[in-house]
Structures are given as structure tokens and as C-alpha cells.
């Protein structure tokens, strides 16, 4: 009886919900990462101007939020594409599938360097990922050398690494809602973590504890959540020469007159170093396409075509102008082939 009532409730909800939903749509609906947003909007605008299709609508909802909306179902009321600053997870794909979103095409569009920057008035520190991990993790290996974890005792960079100046640790970075944060954790914290063998060993033994150790960021003021507004971070850095900031390479590129990227493991964040992979902290950017929508929503194919075209994603393309690091040639060829064929993810 109870089950029947539940089923009835579910059914009536389903039945009434789309009463007002539109049954056709003549523009592409895109959601997702705020990191990819500036690139996607440029392509969308170019696409809208160059073709007779409408310019896609792009909402900036964050990677996770975008995937959530994207995976809510198939149909014009759901978005066609979601941008992501990280690869979609298996669990998310499964979630998609249960909602009927079965065929998803992954498009890797390029790389974004995650720069750690400071004001031009700052002291141009040379950092390593290990330094960053020690400075920012909530728990760090006991400084006395025993293989135990203690709450992060470090107050200045000098405490972390004697080669660094005695400046208070103050890093402005993205909040946990942001894909940039995810990437930072994976590319810097995990890597820094792995430089301690006993923690690295935990990876196999107790994955959960490993993650808790490596990916939890201190909350005692050393790391300041500065919101998604990277402009403000730049302003703050300018005001406070001892603070460091974490943001995408494109922002660094736009604000070269005010801030400077710090070298990590000896490599400066530059167009070339990111592109050839020598700069260690860079991450791929993606977008995901619902295959079921490609044939139905007008302009989908053309939009994909525009995005992967040479003049957009190519080495001299307009996305590179905006600070997106293009894919290496061979990778570009595979991506381009896969998109043209609409190969879905397995």
C-alpha cells in the first residue's frame, strides 16, 4: 500500500512537472565550470556571429553544479553541454546513466596552468609542491621526523623550508565549491603529499585516510578562501605583497603588470612551459556533450566544429589569445577525430 502510494506520488510529480516546460529549443544550453566559462563564451560568441544559429546560452555554475544539471536527464529542459575544469568521475557518469543520459562525448579543449602568484612587490619565492603542501595542509608530518601527523604548526614560509624568507603564510585561493580548488588539491597537494613516503604508503593501505591527509586544507587562516572572483584576488595581492594567490593562468596573463607567477620546482608558469608540460601544475579542461541532443538541438554539430577548429583551439587560435594553453598536436588530432565521430565515453 505504502509503495503504491509512493509510486503514485512519484508519478504525479513527473506528470505535473513538465506541464509548463517548453517542448523545443533553438539555442544550445551550456552550464558548468567558471574556469571554462571565459573560453566557452568566446567560442559561443564567435559561433553565434559566424553562423546563422543563435548564440548558445552559457551559465556559470561551477563544474560540479554543471554536471549535476547536465546529468538530470535528457530533453530540451536539460542542458546540452557542461563545461568542466576536471574530468567527469565514474560515479557521476553512472548517475547520468540512471537519469537516462547514457551517451556522453568528452572533449578536452586544452590546458590551464594553475599559477601561484604574488604582487610584483613581493619576494619572488621559489616554491616546490612539497613546500605548498606543508604550508597549506591541515595536518602535516610531525616536524620532529616521526611518522605521525600533527596539526599544521607552520606559521611562516621559513618554518616550512629554511631556504624561504620568513614571511607569514597567507595564501588566497578558491573556495571548495570551485573546480580550481579541486585541481589545486590534486595537482599540488597530492603530489606534495607523495614526497613523504609513509603517506604515500597510506595510499594503498587506507585510501580514505590518505585523501583526508593530503586533500584537507588548513582552516586556521593560512589559507584564505577568496571566492570565485579572481579579480579581487589580484587586487588583494597588489595590496598585500606578502600574500600569495592561486588562480588560473589566464588571469595571470591578463594581470602581468600587477602580479608575477612564482616558479614551482624551478619552472615559471609561461605559455610555453605549460604547453610542453614542464610546468607541473597544469590541468586539462573539458566539456561534455549529450550525444542524444546533437541531432536535435540546432547548431550543436556546428558549435562542436567551431570549438575544435584550428582557429579556435589551434596554436594560434583565439582561445590561446585568451590564455588557454592549446593541446599538443597529436592530442589535438585525436580529440578532433573523436569529436567529429561523436565517440561516446565508455
Amino acid at each position, binding site marked *: 500500500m505504502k509503495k503504491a502510494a509512493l509510486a503514485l506520488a512519484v508519478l*504525479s510529480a513527473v506528470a505535473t512537472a513538465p506541464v509548463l516546460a517548453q517542448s*523545443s529549443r533553438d539555442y544550445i544550453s551550456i552550464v558548468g565550470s567558471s574556469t571554462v566559462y571565459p573560453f566557452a563564451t568566446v567560442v559561443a560568441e564567435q559561433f553565434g556571429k559566424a553562423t546563422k544559429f543563435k548564440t548558445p546560452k552559457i551559465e556559470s555554475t561551477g563544474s560540479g553544479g554543471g554536471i549535476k544539471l547536465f546529468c538530470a536527464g535528457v530533453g530540451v529542459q536539460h542542458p546540452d553541454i557542461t563545461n568542466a575544469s576536471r574530468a567527469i568521475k565514474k560515479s557521476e557518469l553512472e548517475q547520468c546513466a540512471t537519469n*537516462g543520459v547514457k551517451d556522453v562525448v568528452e572533449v578536452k579543449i586544452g590546458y590551464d596552468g594553475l599559477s601561484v602568484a604574488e604582487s610584483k612587490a613581493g619576494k619572488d619565492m621559489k616554491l616546490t609542491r612539497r613546500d605548498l603542501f606543508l604550508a597549506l595542509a591541515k595536518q602535516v608530518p610531525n616536524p620532529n621526523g616521526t611518522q605521525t601527523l600533527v596539526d599544521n604548526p607552520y606559521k611562516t614560509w621559513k618554518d616550512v623550508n629554511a631556504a624561504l624568507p620568513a614571511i607569514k603564510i597567507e595564501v588566497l585561493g578558491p573556495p571548495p565549491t570551485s573546480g580550481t580548488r579541486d585541481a589545486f588539491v590534486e595537482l599540488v597537494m597530492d603530489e606534495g603529499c607523495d614526497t613523504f613516503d609513509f603517506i604515500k604508503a597510506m595510499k594503498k593501505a587506507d585510501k580514505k585516510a590518505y585523501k583526508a591527509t593530503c586533500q584537507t586544507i588548513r582552516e586556521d587562516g593560512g589559507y584564505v578562501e577568496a571566492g570565485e572572483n579572481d579579480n579581487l584576488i589580484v587586487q588583494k595581492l597588489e595590496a598585500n605583497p606578502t600574500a600569495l594567490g592561486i588562480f588560473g593562468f589566464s588571469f595571470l596573463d591578463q594581470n602581468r603588470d600587477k602580479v608575477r607567477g612564482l616558479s614551482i620546482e624551478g619552472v615559471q608558469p609561461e605559455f610555453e612551459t605549460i604547453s610542453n608540460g614542464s610546468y607541473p601544475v597544469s590541468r586539462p579542461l573539458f566539456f561534455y556533450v549529450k550525444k542524444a541532443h546533437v541531432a536535435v538541438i540546432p547548431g550543436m554539430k556546428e558549435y562542436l566544429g567551431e570549438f575544435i577548429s584550428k582557429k579556435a583551439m589551434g596554436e594560434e587560435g583565439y582561445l590561446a589569445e585568451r590564455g588557454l594553453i592549446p593541446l599538443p598536436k597529436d592530442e589535438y588530432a585525436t580529440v578532433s577525430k573523436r569529436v567529429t565521430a561523436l565517440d561516446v565515453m565508455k
Partner: protein
Amino acid sequence: MTQTPILLVLLLALSSAAYYFGCKRAFRVADGKIRKLHSLPGYYGLYVALWAALPALLILCAWLLFQGSIITRMVVSSLPESIQQLGPDRLNLVVNDIRNLVSGNIVSGQPDATMLAAAEYYRSLLSVCRNLLFAVVLVVAGLCGWFGYSKIRVQHRARNGVESIVNGLLVACSTVAILTTVGIVLSVLFESIRFFQAVPITEFLFGLEWSPQIALRADQAGSSGAFGAVPLFAGTLLITFIAMTVAVPIGLMSALYLAEYASARVRAVAKPLLEVLAGIPTVVYGFFAALTVAPFIRESGSFLGLDVASESALAAGLVMGMMIIPFVSSLSDDVINAVPQSLREGAYGMGATSSETIRRVIFPAALPGIVGAILLAVSRAIGETMIVVMAAGLASNLTANPLEAVTTVTVQIVTLLVGDQEFDSPKTLAAFALGLVLFLVTLALNFVALYIVRKYREQYD
């Protein structure tokens, strides 16, 4: 749903016809002598028209409301047993696909034979329904119209009938306010309850740490995930406090000056100019705070050797105070003007100076009203969003230092919801819980403030 507009047009035509015939019949029963009729002929026309349209409309609405679920149930019961046995989630998916197939929307996969059959069935049911609906609605409209038509007599009180229906419509309109409140409460309540199932309400209300870093995904390590909202409340109060220390003295003194001292001409210019401050959109203040005031404060702070956060509570509070000035001054102006002239004369008559009159007579007399006005302004400050979203920080500091960055309830609602729209993690649910708190707090403030103001008005009416 394409038949609905056609049906509506038909109904409209039908009721227009009903109006025409109603008028005509009224003339006829009165033998052309309108004075004999109880009401004007137009009312008879309206009466018949309403009879023709309203019942049919009601049936139409009810039909449309239930048609979907009834058809869906029928289609589901026609599906093979194996599909019916699926869990509600999967079943929903199937139903959704069928509906998408029918409406020509995108379908999740290649439809198989059963699906196509079900869609066909659905479609046939839909067309049966549509025809039936047409027939039923039109027949009902005709019958009811005829009923109304047949009631037309010389003595029939058509106007009263029409008016009671209009009255009903007016009542319906006035209940929209109640529905809105109910809607607000429901929309935040359910999500809040779910939130409080995950996070104890005491922890939420009294916890000293706010750090909603629950893992975004199952495989990601979250931080402590503390949901103690006290730092948010404290931050909100700090910014509100700063805003009020700007707005209350300036607003109140301006109101007193303009009401008691200023010449008519100064008043005529200054008062509307001050009120412009209230009309400027808050996003403009936010922009102003973030780009002009905050850097200014930070620079003057560093000039004085102070360490000022670039998202200092001071900047947001200062600008919010600017915005609130006219709220305080207009409302105070009202209450000051409500103080009877006789009290002023009483004080002047014994040689009190203007300032003594204001401070010792007018101000105490107007105090309850002013307190009400200030409470309303406080509630406005607490709920203000754009200024703090653009100019205040995200860091949940439990501090009373206005030079540090604090975060507020509204900022967190926006970041939690706009940053990531997962509707089931406690993180986003927390936004609704914060919304609930915000709603309740402002509700209580408004309630008290309005009560005080009303009591005060009664005193001098």
C-alpha cells in the same frame, strides 16, 4: 497541450455570445423598458457569460491537472510486467522517455518496440482525452450558459450574482500574499528539514565554526564540514552594526534637521536628493563598494599602518550604511512630523531652544516610531545581498574587528547555490537553512517594528 488555446478561444467566443444573448433576453423580458429590470441589461449579459465560462474553465483546469497522471498510470499499467517491476527511479525514466517520444522531445536512447507501443498508446489516449475534453468543456459551457440564460427574469438579481463572483476574484487576488508567504516557508522548510537531519539544529545555530567543506563527490576528501552558523550571524551583525552606525546618526540628524530647521526650499531639494540614495540599485552599491570604497579604505588603512583586508567589513558596512540612510531618514521624518505641533509649542512657549525642544520633547515623543524605523532598517541591512556579495568576503571569521573580512548569511546563500547546484548535499541544503533563518529573523524584526510603528501612530491619531 496545443488544444488548450483553441479551447480557450472557443470558450471566449461562447461567453461573448452568451453575453450578447443575455443582454437581448433581458431587453425582451423587460419589453424594452430597462427600468423594469432589477439590474442593467449588461449585468444579465455578464451573468450568462460567466455561467457559460466559469464552470467550463474550472473543469478544464481540473482536467489538465489530472490528465497527465491518469494517462501516465494507464500507460504504466499497460507496460509489460518486467518494466512495471522496476524501481520508481527507473520507472520514471521510462515514463519520461515515453512522454518525450510523444512530444517529439529528445529520448535517452534508441526506443525499442515496447516503448514505441507504449508511446503509441499514450498518444492514442491523449487524443481520446483531447476529444473528450473538447466535448465535455463545450457541453458544460453550453448547458451552464443555457441555465444562466433561462434564469433571466425581470426580478432576477443579475448584478448581485455578478458582483459576488467579482468579489470572489478579489478575494483570490488578496490571498496571493498568503500564498507567497506559504510558498516561501515551504520552499525553504523542506530543504531545511533535510539539512537538519544531516546536521543537528543546535550545531547549526550555536556552532562556532562555519566551513561547509563537505566533499563535493564521494571520492573527494572534505574538510571538517562544520556547519556552525554563528560566525555568519556575527559577520552579518557586524556589517549591520557598521551600517547602522553610519545610517542612524546621519539619517536621524538629517530627518531632524530637515523637519525642524531647514527652510522649505532646502527641504524641497535635500529630501528627494537623499531619497535618491534608496532608489539606487544595490548592485551599483556593490560595484561602488568593491571598486571605490574598499580600495580607498585599504589604502588609507595601510597609510595609517593598519592591516586592512580588501574585503573588510568596514567597506561593505559603510556602503550599506549609505544605502540605509534614506530608510532611516524618511521613516523618522514621518514619525517626527506625526509629533503634534502642540508639543513643540509647549516647549517653545516656555523658552526652550530648538535643540532642547528636539532633544527633550520631540525625540522622546517620537522615539517609539524611530525605534520601529530603525528596526525596519536593520532588517533591510540583514537581508541585503548584492553589496555584501560583491564587497564582503567569504572567510567566516568570528571577529569584531571591522577591518577584517567577514562573511554574511546572504553571501553564503549565494555562494552555496550559485557556486554549485547539487541539491542533496548538506552544503546546498545549508543555503536553504540559512534562508529560513534569514526569513524568520527578518520576519520577527518586521513584526516587532511594524507593531511599534502602528502603536505609535495610534498614539497621536
